């Protein structure tokens, strides 16, 4: 920072002022899940999110579905990122999503009951994965389960939305934007323009 011009220092001070932190869905879990950078004002965050649309049983199922779709491994999963909060918030505000989610959950429970004799949330994780596999993979799909396939695609879409717009998800990707760089970032592989000799993939 020492060699920065007065202009830039002034600008950074201004940026710190405009940095805002919201009390928005998905936040209640971040206090324990992600580290916070020093320039954020410590505003109170809701300790728990109160669902606006889903019934408790539905909410639990959506939470499980999101975690099945983006599970915790070396990095936090959808549950830790509070994706269910985001989905509930979006569905509560979007009339066109309410029926597909509600009907889809009902379909999924009926499907689970037919295969394993219990609602989806009552199945073992292995059973849940097997059921979702039938909806997710082309090779396993059955034409009579189109409604379930569409529901799975919908939940997956909103899980991706919710996860990769959370702090946890952006950290998972190591999202490099919305940061301050002192010069326009430059390709570090100058002697390898075609990038055919890069270090072995990390992931």
């Amino acid at each position: 920072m020492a060699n920065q011009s007065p202009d830039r220092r002034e600008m950074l001070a201004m940026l710190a002022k405009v940095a805002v932190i919201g009390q928005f869905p998905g936040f209640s879990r971040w206090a324990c899940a992600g580290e916070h950078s020093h320039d954020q004002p410590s505003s109170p965050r809701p300790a728990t999110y109160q669902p606006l649309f889903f019934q408790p049983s539905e909410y639990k199922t959506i939470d499980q579905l999101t975690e099945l779709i983006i599970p915790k491994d070396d990095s936090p999963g959808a549950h830790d990122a509070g994706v269910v909060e985001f989905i509930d918030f979006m569905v509560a505000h979007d009339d066109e999503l309410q029926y597909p989610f509600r009907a889809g959950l009902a379909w999924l429970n009926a499907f689970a009951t037919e295969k394993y004799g219990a609602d989806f949330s009552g199945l073992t994780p292995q059973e849940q994965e097997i059921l979702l596999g039938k909806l997710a993979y082309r090779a396993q799909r059955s034409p009579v389960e189109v409604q379930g396939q569409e529901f799975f695609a919908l939940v997956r879409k909103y899980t991706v939305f919710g996860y990769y717009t959370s702090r946890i998800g952006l950290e998972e990707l190591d999202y490099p934007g919305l940061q301050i760089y002192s010069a326009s970032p430059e390709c570090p592989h100058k002697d390898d323009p075609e990038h055919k000799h890069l270090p072995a993939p990390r992931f």
Partner: protein
Amino acid sequence: MAKQIYDVIVIGTGAGGGMAIHALCEAGAKVCALNGSRRLDPRKDFRNHRQPYDMPFRGFGDPKKSKDYIGYMDNEYTEGIWEHEIAYTTAPGTVWTWRRCFAVGGKTNFWGRSSARFGDIDFKAASRDGYDVDWPVTYAEMAPYYSRVERMIGVASTVQNRPSNPDGEYLPPMNFRCIDRILESGSKKVGIPYLPDRIAQLTRNHAGHPACHYCGNCTEGCDTGSFFSTPWFFLPAAEKSGNLEIRTNALAKNILTDENGHASGVAYVDRTTKQEVEVYGRAVVVAASCVESARILLNSKSRHWPGGIANSSGQVGRNLCDHLYGTLARGFFPQLLGQPSFPDNVSSSTVAWMPRWQNLENPKQEKFIRGYSVYPDGGCSGFPYYADRLEGFGRNFKREIKRRYPTPVSFYIQAPTQRSDSNYVSIDPDVKDIFGIPAARITFEWGKNELLMWEHGKQACEDLLRASGAEYIGAGEIDIPGTSLHETGTCRMGNDPKHFVTNRFGQTHDVPNLYICDASVFPNCTDKTTTISILAFSLRTAEHLIENRKA
């Protein structure tokens, strides 16, 4: 009380109006600027540094409102800034999306910043290929204005010696990212230029404005003023001069005329009171943007001007041109799979470009005339859109999203439409906006020439991807007409008053104290973006106006 008469009334404060205001106030003219909406407050209105999780709807917007968003720039970050209240209509069969920013500064608050000069290959295109007319200016005449504009606003690029792209006075270029280096290598194999874009983004402190910090969210507005917009660059000094009064929420309705049919002022609707107000001036500059300017002229009917002011040629509103936009090709780089993320998304648009390479030596080499340019995009962006195309769920799905994060690449075409009688703006005979002003109606369709460019571009970009070692996924769609925001042609400039609305200086042939300072005066559309040329032509027009006042 004697009525106040300003030297000049300027309608609009975007690129064209802002530059006219800047030049006129500097020359000592008393200016009243009419602006259709409010002033923005960068601290409140520019949310460009918010992370998606700082927004209630993560940037996707409240579904109740987001269904009415017009185009990608109208979003949760910019909510409340794009215009939704003023009606426009489309003729049967026409599809047109029309984003309008009526806030002070207009679209310069959010523009794409690509800033290539037009050249004689554009101004004299008709002489080369026989279609339509040459512009009534030469590059030699315009070059000094471009240079002055570049010095004012700061454009980062390199000298490239391209036949279709005159070089200018540039700040250091943006650096190439990994995807640029890879594509640059491929481009050499297929003979397509791949070069640093000309981008009005400050790569160092310039003219009192701080250098860019490369946060990558420019299109949500810049709260440090590190790219050109009139509220950051022009309007503060003009207001400080004491020569400028900006009236906000002043929606221009029609030009007023005196007993000779000359412009005497402007009638506008105050959006806060819904009352009609008149303001008087010795000259009027119309700079409301291409379609709005035509609407205002056509709505300015009087005894002298039954078909709309300055429209004895019948050409006001005709000849509407646009850029055909669309994604020519998508792919991904296997060589980047699993590599660490890299700051690719540092300008939210264009670090590099592929400037026109068609029909250069021989104007009729291709099946189409003229040419198009392409903007590449890719790398680590704000959201993994490619996740849609992956199958499955669980750990593999999550890992695949991460593995592919640095790899996406796509190409966006900027193809000019050619002048056509079938594309125009008229006044809807039945529909008025909520303030009672007759609405603009747009009649538009793509022409064969730009569709041939689209086909050509798809093949070229597929070839480039393969030559770069990328996997080709496929082509995207052509965007809805109007997407580019690069409308031109509704008040064309030309020497013959029978066929053109303004003379070569942007002064209307019919009404000597009425000037037009936006892209509506451009006789046609080129492969280049419009803003820097709006600035250059507006500066020239404003100085012509100043000369005329002295005379």
